[in-house]
């Protein structure tokens, strides 16, 4: 039996302690982690490739990416998960209307501590959503639904109103089928008083009536993004509404599509980071939102994902060309509140118009 004296015991003990602390350090750092949701596909892949690694490098917080199908369906998932007591993501990405809906449902989101995220002061206050219980969402990035045309078939229109001209566009356009996918906002900006028109039922019916006049020119009422993508590529439609970033990417790949900013502008929507009420990672989430609001990160997302930054171009190092790829003016702000307050009325009137019933 080896005789253990005090000195060797201290030595081995110290070495052991040192070894365990060396091994232990990265473990402690790695134990800080965050589950972040984003829309699956190209979008999420870009986040995983460019944004999350930069965040982990800067803070040591590991990110586990969670795939969201989109905003609205994800809200259903999170609502059920919250009721069940265990949520798949700490931070979710919600469009503004979904965020307002979540705040109205209540109990799904945890108020954010803005003082822990100083970089959010860079953002336009419109992009920080305040509810009665506090700020529930901070803008992550924004995107435009742009007018697109096939430049091989038609001249670039100066106004959305030209889409109503059947001599050019008969059975040739692709528009979104959902009542709240901002086509009504385009109609309001083009022919009426914009958001004001949504204030009364008569105003909304007038918008829908005007939208009905474009029906003979619509070849495709798309519900999934990919439908419009395929139809533009295949020449089934020669114009319509589509996401600016994807349209630009398609144009860069040589497909016959060109996004346009007509004089009324294009609707701008944005996604917000929202913290689940069941999450215990408020500190990590704050660090991530702070990182995401940083002008450098906003520029990174514009370059790599194609989203529009939520702050002035001057605050970022984006060139004019890079900025024009992801953003433009004027921007049409959707009448989010009206869509929610008069949900059933607008949906049924819109569906009736589409069905001709």
């Amino acid at each position: 039996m080896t005789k253990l004296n005090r000195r060797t015991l201290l030595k081995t003990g110290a070495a052991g302690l040192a070894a365990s602390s060396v091994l232990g350090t990265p473990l402690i750092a790695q134990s800080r982690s965050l589950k972040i949701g984003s829309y699956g596909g190209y979008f999420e892949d870009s986040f995983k490739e460019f944004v999350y690694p930069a965040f982990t490098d800067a803070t040591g917080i590991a990110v586990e990416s969670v795939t969201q199908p989109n905003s609205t369906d994800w809200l259903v998932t999170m609502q059920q998960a919250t009721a069940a007591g265990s949520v798949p993501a700490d931070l979710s990405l919600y469009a503004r209307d979904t965020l307002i809906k979540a705040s109205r449902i209540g109990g799904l989101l945890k108020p954010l501590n803005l003082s822990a995220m100083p970089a959010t002061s860079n953002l336009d206050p419109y992009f920080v959503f305040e509810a009665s219980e506090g700020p529930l969402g901070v803008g992550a990035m924004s995107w435009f639904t742009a007018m697109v045309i096939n430049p091989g078939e038609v001249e670039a229109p100066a106004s959305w109103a030209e889409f109503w001209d059947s001599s050019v566009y008969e059975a040739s356009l692709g528009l979104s089928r959902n009542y709240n996918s901002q086509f009504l906002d385009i109609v309001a900006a083009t022919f009426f008083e914009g958001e004001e028109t949504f204030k009364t039922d008569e105003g909304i019916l007038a918008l829908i009536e005007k939208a009905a006049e474009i029906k003979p020119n619509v070849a495709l009422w798309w519900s999934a993004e990919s439908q419009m993508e395929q139809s533009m590529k295949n020449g089934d439609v020669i114009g319509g509404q589509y996401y600016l970033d994807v349209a630009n990417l398609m144009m860069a790949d040589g497909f016959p599509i060109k996004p346009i900013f007509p004089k009324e502008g294009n609707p701008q929507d944005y996604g917000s980071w929202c913290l689940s009420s069941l999450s215990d990672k408020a500190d990590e989430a704050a660090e991530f939102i702070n990182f995401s609001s940083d002008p450098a990160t906003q520029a990174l997302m514009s370059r790599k994902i194609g989203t529009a930054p939520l702050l002035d171009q001057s605050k970022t190092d984006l060139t004019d060309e890079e900025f024009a790829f992801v953003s433009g003016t004027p921007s049409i702000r959707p009448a989010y509140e009206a869509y929610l307050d008069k949900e059933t009325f607008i949906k049924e009137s819109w569906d009736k118009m589409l069905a001709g019933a």
Partner: protein
Amino acid sequence: MTAVERIEADTAQRPAREGPGLRRILPWFLTGLITLLCVVPFLLVIAISFGRKIEGAAWTWDFTLANYQRFFVGALWPDDVTFLYLQQLGFSFWYAVIASLLAVLTALPFTLLLTRLSRRAQAAWLVFILSSLSLSEVFIVMGWDILLSNNSGLPALFKSTGLTLWLKDVGWFQTLRDWGLASPRNVKFKTSQFATILTMSYLVWPYAVILLYPALSRLDRSQSEAARTMGAGGWTVARTVILPAIRLPLFGSTLLLFVFLLGTYVAVTVFAAPAQHTTAVAIYTNIRGANLNAPFGATQAVILLISAGLCLGLGHRLNKWAEAR
């Protein structure tokens, strides 16, 4: 000795068989499983259909008939009346009836010819048709989507062969435009009822063959031959000998495919214009999507189910009546 005592004595005398416990538990277990997996979700849908939508948010449990009322006259009743949802139900039935009939009627001659092939050839065809069932609806719709696309499909063929130009010359192109089957540039087959029904019948065609095959392969050929020797033509034989003999499986297959097609979702979303959308699509847009109106979606589902049930019942009655004659 009471009955119970007698039974007890009986069981005591009987030699213990292997696993009497399992034998007794299994039916209960299966009943429980079926209840859990089928009946409970079903009851849940019915319960949700009485729920109430909260504007701008989700929905809550309640007991209101407002959703059922909305299905028949719209949400704005009595200020305004719409038959939108009945129209959608109508289209569900229209597509399902036409597509299932089309599938069965085209599968019938095919299957009849199939049964006259050698055993080997029959087996090969059946395996091929069975394996095509593994294609999901999404794949099939995608395939037809490409086949009907302007630059890669049928319209491209029309254009390159000069058929489009010819149609324009003879003036039929305008007729196609009036029917919504052409844009000013070329013919277009999407979105149209033509594409929707075509895809839907394609979707169930293999089922039609497989459902008809057993009946047709058991068909007694000596009957047709006898009719032939008595001087009946091919058409007369088909009408008076073959069709009456397979009336029941023919009717049954059509009914089954019809019910199957009532719920078609992908083909309708992709190929039908919103003016011709079905209840299945409406259910989805209510439950998921931007709306979160599960109660109204559930109501539509319940009504679709009841209508399908009524059709099946009616079919059964019709069948019995025909049998009795």
